[in-house]
């Protein structure tokens, strides 16, 4: 059986009796089994998915008008998104065995529309990493090149979709953790605007950057899921009250003015493969009648530093709660409360998480705060203004998602700085709080996927989805 890769197709086939939801779940469970060696899933909710599929099959038969909009959608969720009664660990030892008492708003909204959640996916510990090599439960491997990273931090989520083990996946982004793995695995990945999707139930890394987003094989499936999870949530004071509206494809729009940043094409970090793919995409868009214009962006060399100062500061604060007192790993060696903190956290956190907590605590400390944190906040505001300025003339900004294709396992994990620099094109959207969508365009000479991204002004997800849908 081949259910296809779009929600519309799957729903039609279920309706016309080609297969049942139970068949579909069975199919995905077999796919999961077949891709087990890639380590994409930390846990598969097999029995639960089978049971729920039966219930939904009955519902379809007996109360078809009571069925949710997303019936037939089987998805995975990244292990930083809470699901009531299910384990959630942020791929960390410190939360080993921890079970969430509530569901994230995004998860609840999907469940209310009859989505089946088939498992939780591996990721970098606390979503910190670009290669998915920082998981306490082992790395995830890219399904395309078996010695390649899938990207991170939502590597498991990307591979779960790449390998057709589910229709779509919820991931999360702080600085590219959806788009970069989407590019590395040859699928679509969307990071919504900051404030578009509730962060309630998303384990916090950098609170002013974090967003839940979607992986899929096509834009329409992505739009259907986003429409459900987007919108204000009283549980998240930073979620926007601007209505999300419908992410339909009713508009036909003419030629668009699209900016691309000249410095990106000439940046030392960009690989020849990615550069030529970018030029090809520009030419392709022009041939479709769009106007592509190179623009200046003066902050390219500051974005990575700005991003890491602010996110590590927030992370150092957000991760303080993992102290072994109320839940999570508690050291058995501790003799007093001071030791309890030190030992529980030293044992529970991995190296990258410790590194970022220490950097964050440093940039927030008296005597360094202004030099680092305050300055980075100022630069972030300038970046935002510069991006808004570009959008005053252009509808979209085009950029490669990553400077290079997926690297080999263990290639960069020894040198954190090298890995940080690979985030250079993705962090811009997170710093500015704007939506960005990565879509597959081609492959490198060695067969690895290359992705491009388009960015739109804040809350213009609909425009972004509509435009990318016209490209295939």
């Amino acid at each position, binding site marked *: 059986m081949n259910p296809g890769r779009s929600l519309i197709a799957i729903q039609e086939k279920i309706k016309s009796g080609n297969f049942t939801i139970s068949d579909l779940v069975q199919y995905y469970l077999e796919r999961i089994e077949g891709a087990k060696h890639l380590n994409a899933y930390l846990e598969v909710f097999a029995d639960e998915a089978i049971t729920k599929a039966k219930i939904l099959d009955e519902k379809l038969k007996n109360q078809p008008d009571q069925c949710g909009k997303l019936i037939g959608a089987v998805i995975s969720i990244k292990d930083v998104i809470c699901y009531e009664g299910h384990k959630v660990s942020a791929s960390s030892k410190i939360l080993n065995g921890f079970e969430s008492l509530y569901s994230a708003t995004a998860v609840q909204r999907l469940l209310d529309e009859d989505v089946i959640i088939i498992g939780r996916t591996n990721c970098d510990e606390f979503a910190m990493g670009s290669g998915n090599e920082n998981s306490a439960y082992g790395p995830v491997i890219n399904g395309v090149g078996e010695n390649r990273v899938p990207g991170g931090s939502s590597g498991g989520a990307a591979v779960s979709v790449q390998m057709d083990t589910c229709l779509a996946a919820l991931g999360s982004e702080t600085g590219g953790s959806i788009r970069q793995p989407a590019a590395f695995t040859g699928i679509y990945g969307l990071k919504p605007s900051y404030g578009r999707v509730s962060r309630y139930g998303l384990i916090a890394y950098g609170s002013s950057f974090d967003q839940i987003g979607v992986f899929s094989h096509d834009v329409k499936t992505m739009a259907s899921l986003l429409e459900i999870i987007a919108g204000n949530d009283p549980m998240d004071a930073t979620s926007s009250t601007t209505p999300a509206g419908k992410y339909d494809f009713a508009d036909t729009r003419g030629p668009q003015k699209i900016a691309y940043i000249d410095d990106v094409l000439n940046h030392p970090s960009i690989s020849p493969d990615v550069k030529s793919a970018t030029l090809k995409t520009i030419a392709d868009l022009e041939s479709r009648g769009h106007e592509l214009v190179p623009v200046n962006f003066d902050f390219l060399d500051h974005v990575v530093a700005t991003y890491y100062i602010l996110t590590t500061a927030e992370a150092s604060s957000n991760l303080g709660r993992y102290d072994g007192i109320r839940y999570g790993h508690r050291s058995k060696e501790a003799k007093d409360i001071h030791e309890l903190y030190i030992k529980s956290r030293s044992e529970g956190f991995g190296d990258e998480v410790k590194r970022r907590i220490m950097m964050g605590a440093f940039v*927030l400390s008296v005597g360094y705060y202004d030099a680092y*944190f305050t300055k980075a906040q100022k630069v972030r505001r300038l970046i935002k203004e510069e991006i808004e300025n570009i959008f005053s003339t252009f509808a979209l900004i085009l950029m490669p998602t990553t400077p290079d294709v997926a690297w080999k396992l263990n290639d960069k994990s020894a040198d954190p700085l090298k890995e940080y620099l690979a985030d250079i094109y993705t962090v811009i959207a997170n710093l500015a709080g704007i939506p960005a969508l990565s879509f597959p365009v081609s492959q490198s000479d060695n067969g690895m996927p290359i992705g491009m991204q388009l960015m739109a002004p804040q809350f213009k997800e609909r425009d972004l989805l509509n435009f990318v849908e016209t490209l295939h």
Partner: protein
Amino acid sequence: MVQYQTVVGLEVHIQMNTYSKAFCGDALSFGAEPNTHVSTISLAHPGTLPKPNKEHINKGLKLALSLNSEVNKVNAFDRKHYYYADSPKAYQITQDRLPICVGGALEIELADGSKKNVRIHHMHMEEDAGKTIHDIDTQYSMVDLNRAGTPLLELVTEPDLNSGDEVLAFIAQLQQLVRYLGISDGDMEKGSLRCDVNISVNPVGSKILGERCEVKNVNSKKNAKAAVLYESQRQIALLEKGLTFNKQTLHFDPESGRTSPMRDKEDADDYRYFPDPDLPPIRISQSEIDEIQELLPALPWEVKKKMKEQVKLNEYDSTILSSDKKIADYFFNLLEQKANPKLLANLMINKILPHLNGKEMSSIEIEEDVIISFLSLIENEKVSPSTAYQKLWPALIDNPSKPPKDLAQSLGILQIKDDGIISKIIEEVISENSVQAEEYRKGKKKVFGFLIGQAMRKSKGSAAPDVVKKALMDALHN
């Protein structure tokens, strides 16, 4: 010999009586079973977020406006980091850079009647920590997170207080104010109001403040006063010996009346404050401020002034009747129902309040219209004031729903003022005591009292004495 002056500034933590906690829906609790008022948010479970509580902000604004403090129309929350078992997030949400308001003042009145303006530095909103209890178990410390996340307002004064008595007066005035505003029960025993007292001494006339010591978490007005007395004497004694001392954090022991240094775990800490990214800045519009201003009740000092100047009560009566908003409201409510002000004030102070014995005004079992009838019996001289207090009031307490007039009737204490009845009594008295009456007429004036006594006895004490007096006089002089 050098004269020293004591200089005190206060940091007062006021627990708000909001329906729910500062950043989540858990109900507030006092005295509940440990860890029964906790949710995933107050336990800082992964993925949870704080959500601001409008009631916390509005109650903060009420206090700000009543102190004439300037509201920051954009104020913001910050995170203050420290690790402790009763701090679930490892940071406290507070306001470091942009507090809800700055400036303002509270006027206090001292025992000698003098007044003093105490300036407010600022007030900020924050959340309370849980409690760590060390004396339940020998091996472990116990943590109760019911209190974690309770909304607080911290009020910081300028160093304008100069004695233990002033500190006591300030706290009492603030307690009265927060109770009037209905934003906190202000109860220090319950910890609803807690004080850090910063004390220094400097030579009189000197502008330079001495090194200050902070006495943490004082839990009664009396202890605050005692801490100021002890600590200023301790500091003066050291200075007089030519010794110096460092800035310290102290604990006050009410048993011994002494201060002692606390374990200094917090002193060198860097709290790494930064703006809380989970909580966008709070924007308060002028119309919101106007609305709150509009809703402010009459403040305690305004109420007292009204009692003195408009109702013409004396200082003592006004002080008592304005001490509590519900008492004052009750007083003014009955005034509107045409109660005699002075009689009402007397009744409340001498009978009603002692009867309630600290209970809420609303727990009085006698209806307002019954009180009004009671008072009008006195005012219309149907019952004498002393009889009303001694006999009728206790009867009313026992039969709160009976009309006071009926009660007075059955007690036989209704005063007879009827000239006809009284003349008849007098006639009888004169004829039964004709010898004495004749003596009076011949100039033996002191038998008058005897005759009055006979008349009163005949009326079983219910004749109005002044009417009896006049009628007897008339009868004897005919």
